[in-house]
């Protein structure tokens, strides 16, 4: 390439020129490497240089036309060159033009004597969030779908919301139609929110504000609205919850009732979970979700972040063995503060099929065996073992509780022992045990990475979401880490923490994977640095980078808001069908369904093209 000509072209565009010439990713990569050091470049190019993975390069290659701004000495002559090269133009001033032209013709433009410089138009800068590029919502910095969530109610049941954040306003008025603070038992209508009354119920955790921004923030406060959520024109109904399942069920009912009153379809996001119950969708709380969901009423739940947390042990016991079958799972307690006292506390449940005849025992570190029903109080610890039949599934559940003094010899060395009670007692043989909270301790033997989707993610009607990675860098507010770069992360791969399915009864959950690591979204002004450290806060703006299936779920919530805008009568089974049919598979996901990815990556553009059954 002639150096004089190439010097007239913005380096960002130069990449495209090379592509048009050579159609070769390797040579394009070489050009990229030759660019000046990152810090001296325009932010858009910095972003490109840092983030340009092979996938991005391929996407870049597919771009047929580019928009450029040119400085001219004669617009008319330039207009002719544009027309000759099958481009279009707008005259901005007497010596500035906005031109859209095939990328391959850029050199012809640069060769034009009447043009002094060809610059990438702002639309060419990679200014959308990485997640949207991955899901096909944004291609070439433009939304690929006309839907924006308009006329749809998005429900967020979480830690609350920063009602003052510009991303939740339109023309200075709030887009939050109702905000219910369950903790203080206060409700705020939109006019009260506009009067500033809802600031009495701030989001001091910052989780809910971030989640709401992913689903429905409009990106205000970020340059070019780059951190816009998926459904930026949806209405919002927010509940600051106590986190208790009973109150969450009430909140779901309340939001759906509000949607009915407003004659709007509605999708509710639950970025929370726990590990009690049979992990089969049969807790009363989960059945309440099934009961409340219906046409135009959807509930999205995060799968959970327990993938590398040893809180589940499980096995399939072999049938028809000559000797009674026996399985052991060891666990240890983690000392914690309970009601102001430091103690070891463990609560776990063992579940097995109603046709199996098994005995579950607890063995203490000094070898004592406890069998249900039993409540034992020793000098240094208390044990209770309780056997019940679960009402809904009729399966067996043994609930074990251990409370000990925080002495090292009493914190480790505990075991669950499951044995066949009678010959032929193993008929199904599936045994699962869950520690109800990871803060209680961990299994040290018998661990299993499957069946880690938490409740209410195991609810039948819930659309359950896994997380994959789309971002590992941002400029932060931290004084020590100005530029965060999590180099070890594999973009487009499943998040290490994303909980694996299926459910205990074999349902294919999670159903779908969405960007959840890291997502930049709205920052609550009330969240202290202890909750959201400075290195995760994005430089100069009220946005923060967070990770978790908590972030992946609202991405799907936003996408379903777009779907409901198109067809407000869709129910959960149809929503799942369309998500599954449109899901994207790649080398990371492999064949799907699989327990990490569900049916694959969400593809928002395709989701909105799937025809009804």
């Amino acid at each position, binding site marked *: 390439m002639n150096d004089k000509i190439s010097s007239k072209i913005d380096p960002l565009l130069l990449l495209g020129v090379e592509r048009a010439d050579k159609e070769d990713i390797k040579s394009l990569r070489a050009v990229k490497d030759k660019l000046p050091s990152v810090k001296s470049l325009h932010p858009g190019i910095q972003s490109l240089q840092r983030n340009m993975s092979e996938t991005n390069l391929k996407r870049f290659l597919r771009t047929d036309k580019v928009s450029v701004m040119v400085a001219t000495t004669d617009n008319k002559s330039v207009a002719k060159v544009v027309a000759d090269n099958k481009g279009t133009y707008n005259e901005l001033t007497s010596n500035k033009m906005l031109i859209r032209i095939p990328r391959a013709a850029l050199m012809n433009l640069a060769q034009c004597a009447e043009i002094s410089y060809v610059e990438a138009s702002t639309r060419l800068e990679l200014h959308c969030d990485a997640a949207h590029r991955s899901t096909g919502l944004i291609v070439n910095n433009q939304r690929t779908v006309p839907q924006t969530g308009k006329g749809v109610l998005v429900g967020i049941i*979480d*830690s609350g919301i920063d009602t003052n954040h510009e991303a939740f306003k339109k023309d200075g008025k709030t887009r939050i139609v109702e905000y219910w603070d369950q903790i203080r038992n206060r409700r705020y209508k939109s006019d009260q929110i506009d009067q500033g009354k809802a600031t009495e119920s701030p989001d001091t*955790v910052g*989780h809910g504000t*971030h989640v709401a921004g992913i689903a429905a923030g409009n990106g205000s406060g970020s340059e070019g609205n780059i951190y816009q959520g998926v459904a930026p024109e949806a209405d919002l109904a927010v509940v600051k919850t*106590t*986190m*208790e*399942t*009973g*109150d*969450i*069920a*009430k909140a779901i*009912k309340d939001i759906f009732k509000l949607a009915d009153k407003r004659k709007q379809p509605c999708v509710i996001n639950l*970025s*929370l*979970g*726990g590990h*009690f119950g049979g992990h089969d969708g049969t*807790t*009363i*709380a989960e*059945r*309440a979700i099934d*009961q*409340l969901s219906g046409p135009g009423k959807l509930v999205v739940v*995060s*799968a*959970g*972040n327990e993938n590398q947390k040893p809180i589940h042990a499980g096995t399939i016991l072999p049938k028809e063995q000559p000797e009674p079958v026996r399985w052991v799972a060891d666990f240890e307690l983690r000392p914690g503060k*309970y*009601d102001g*006292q430091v*103690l070891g506390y463990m609560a776990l449940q063992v579940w097995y099929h109603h046709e199996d005849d098994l005995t579950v025992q607890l063995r203490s570190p000094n070898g004592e065996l406890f069998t249900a029903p039993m409540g034992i*109080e*020793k*000098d*240094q*610890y*208390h044990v209770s073992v309780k056997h019940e039949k679960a*009402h*809904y599934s009729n399966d067996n559940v043994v609930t074990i509780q251990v*409370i*000990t*003094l925080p002495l090292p010899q009493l914190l480790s060395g505990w075991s669950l022992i499951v044995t066949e009670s009678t010959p032929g007692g193993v008929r199904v043989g599936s045994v699962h045990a869950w520690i109800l*909270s990871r803060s209680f301790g961990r299994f040290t033997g018998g661990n299993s990475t499957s069946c880690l989707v*938490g409740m209410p993610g195991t609810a039948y009607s819930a659309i359950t979401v896994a997380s994959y990675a789309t971002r590992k860098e941002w400029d932060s507010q931290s004084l020590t880490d100005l530029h965060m770069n999590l180099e070890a992360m594999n973009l487009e791969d499943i998040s290490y923490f994303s909980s694996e399915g299926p459910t205990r009864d074999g349902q294919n959950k999670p159903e779908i994977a969405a960007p959840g690591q890291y997502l930049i979204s709205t920052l609550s002004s009330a969240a202290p640095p202890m909750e959201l450290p400075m290195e995760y806060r994005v430089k100069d703006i009220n946005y923060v980078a*967070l*990770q*978790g*299936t*908590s*972030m992946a*779920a609202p991405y799907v919530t936003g996408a379903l808001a777009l779907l409901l805008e198109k067809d407000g009568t869709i129910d959960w089974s149809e929503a799942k069908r369309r998500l599954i049919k449109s899901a994207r598979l790649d080398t990371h996901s492999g064949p799907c369904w699989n327990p990490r990815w569900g049916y694959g990556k969400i593809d928002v553009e395709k989701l909105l093209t799937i025809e009804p059954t």
Partner: protein
Amino acid sequence: MTNSLKKFLESRDKDKDGRPKKLKVLVTLKVSHPDKKSLKRLKEIGLSVEDIIDHIVIGSIAADKEEALKADPLVSEVERSQKLDFTS
């Protein structure tokens, strides 16, 4: 049993004033859409009803009344409301 363990066990189901703690519960009934009579019965047992979703009743009850609620012929299941965690 050591004092600290005893104190913890005793305080688990009691509030600061030593009264039985109020538990939030989800209850399924053997009837859907409970009528006035059923609701009156639940109130007599000690359940203060907060919301109803078909045959599911959400309410709160003193810890020492939980067993009586479970044993009532009107009631199918009683599930303690559980505290969930954020998944981030």
